[in-house]
């Protein structure tokens, strides 16, 4: 999943399309959540409460 993040950032840098930026930003958040769910002992669904 870390490599997914790397690829997303690479895509944001290379794409000349402005509308990509908000989507990539939000998908990066999802990717971080997924990474967190894989490695963190804390369930991610608790993050909003914390």
């Amino acid at each position, binding site marked *: *999943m870390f*490599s*997914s993040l790397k*690829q*997303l950032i*690479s*895509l944001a840098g*290379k*794409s000349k*399309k402005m*509308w*990509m930026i908000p*989507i990539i930003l939000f*998908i990066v958040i*999802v*990717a971080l959540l*997924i990474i967190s769910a894989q490695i963190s002992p804390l369930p991610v669904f608790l993050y909003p409460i914390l």
Partner: protein
Amino acid sequence: MKILGVSSFYHDSAAALFIDGKLISAIEEERFSRVKHDNQFPFKAIQYCLDSVGLTIDDIDAVAYYEKPLRKFERLLETFVETYPFALKPFLQAIPDWLGQKINVEDIIRKNVGFTKRIYFVSHHLSHASAAYYSSLFKTAAILTIDGVGEYQTTGLWKGDGGTLSPLARIDFPHSIGLLYSTFTAYLGFKVNEDEYKVMGLSAYGSPEYVEDIYHLIRVKPDGSFRLNMEYFSFREGFRMFNDKFISLLGQPRIPGGKIEQRHKDIAASIQKVVEELLFAMLHHLFSLTHTTNLCMSGGVALNALANGKIYTRTPFKHVHILGAAGDSGAALGAALYGMRHGQKKEVNAPITSLYTGSSYSNESAESVLKTYPGLRYRIYDAEQDLIQEVAALLSKGKIVGWFWGKTEFGPRALGARSILSKPSPRIMKDNMNKIKRREEFRPFAGSILQEHVHEYFYTPEKKYYSPFMNVCLVVREKKRNELAAIVHADNTCRIQTVNIDNGRYYRLIKEYYRLTGVPCILNTSFNVMGEPIVEHPRQAIEDFVHSRMDILVLNNLVVTKR
């Protein structure tokens, strides 16, 4: 230079290995995983390619991947943006899938495969164009690439000259002939990306009465360029390819497995006609841009054998090369060919005249499996000539023979290495074969014919017409239709493979059959039953033999019968 080409994550994952310009091995992942059109990363296919010549991944100089995954992902996101807010469900399915693996191709190649050197990412249509051009014998050629979609491109016009490929023009997603044909495949109750050839086969039983309606779905210019009328299609925003407006135009879709009515046959005939007209218009335009009578074609739509057979009479092109693996598995090959050219910085000369590039098994390994089947008996033939005489005689008597010999073919067609064979007449052989294969009765069978006799039986563009990859349908000559009754389709065409000395034992078998019967052609269908990929291992062949009405099984030098 040792270069490995790879395709994956859409359909027909495959790997292909070239060493110093020569194709050494190539095979689809489905043959090992036994998942038809398997789209998972082809680890087993890669391992086979390496093992076939005793290499490890460290011996490989470069890996070439058949598309640019980030650009494809960008197109996917653009589609979600264009169709907002209607594409939520596909979005929810696609994003985890892409984040999970599809976007990480480089990582998979480096970490899971263990490759550390350079990776080429060759754009999808360039992979197709390379597969078509660099595998041909042409120095100069016009090239048409046409499929569902790559990154953005769905159609490409190219010129190949002195080993250099030049892009001329393109059409981008969502305007796609491949997706148009697939939409009709789905509408007629068949599986998308699997059953398009069923629509082609069904078209022979219908008349093109819906052509005018179909031209509501697509706007075409005289130069063959086109736009789909997206008001009728929903493949961007949903999982169904057509919408209610499409249904209002053409009527209710056929339920999968449901009865096939005349209306369905007529619709199949209509879409086939429209696609052919479009294709020929494109080819005329391509000719005007390139001024050469040599043509190469690639991409999934290039598997439309019915259209391919008409190119000679409907366009200025006189010499046509369509690689047998014209779909995405062939794109793995094309990516490697392009990477080779780029890496070597010199002309790539890698004509491909044989697709016997897959796995093979010894007599001993086949025998060891056979011994676990007490209900079967077998005889080993030391001399090939004796084996061929025996099998040809059985064929002439109407026996149905499972033929498993040598290296398996690359691409969707069986070319005499993993085939089920029978004599090409009478008509009942077709029905018997359809029962063995558990196929719909409207499906036609193809033939393998000695190249030196092809013009006697078919209307060919030249006397010794060369079509080794079974991707062209030709009209059967009137006087020969009885002799080929089991393989002549309702429209008097037949999909054919010309066979010559390069086909080895398969050629010698047909030669012997010709000597016995005076007919230089046999029925050839792929060695598999419905729903499974072509057999790869002797055990799979034996299982199909045991559970079907095949009379004889030939495993290399072993002839097997049921007790």
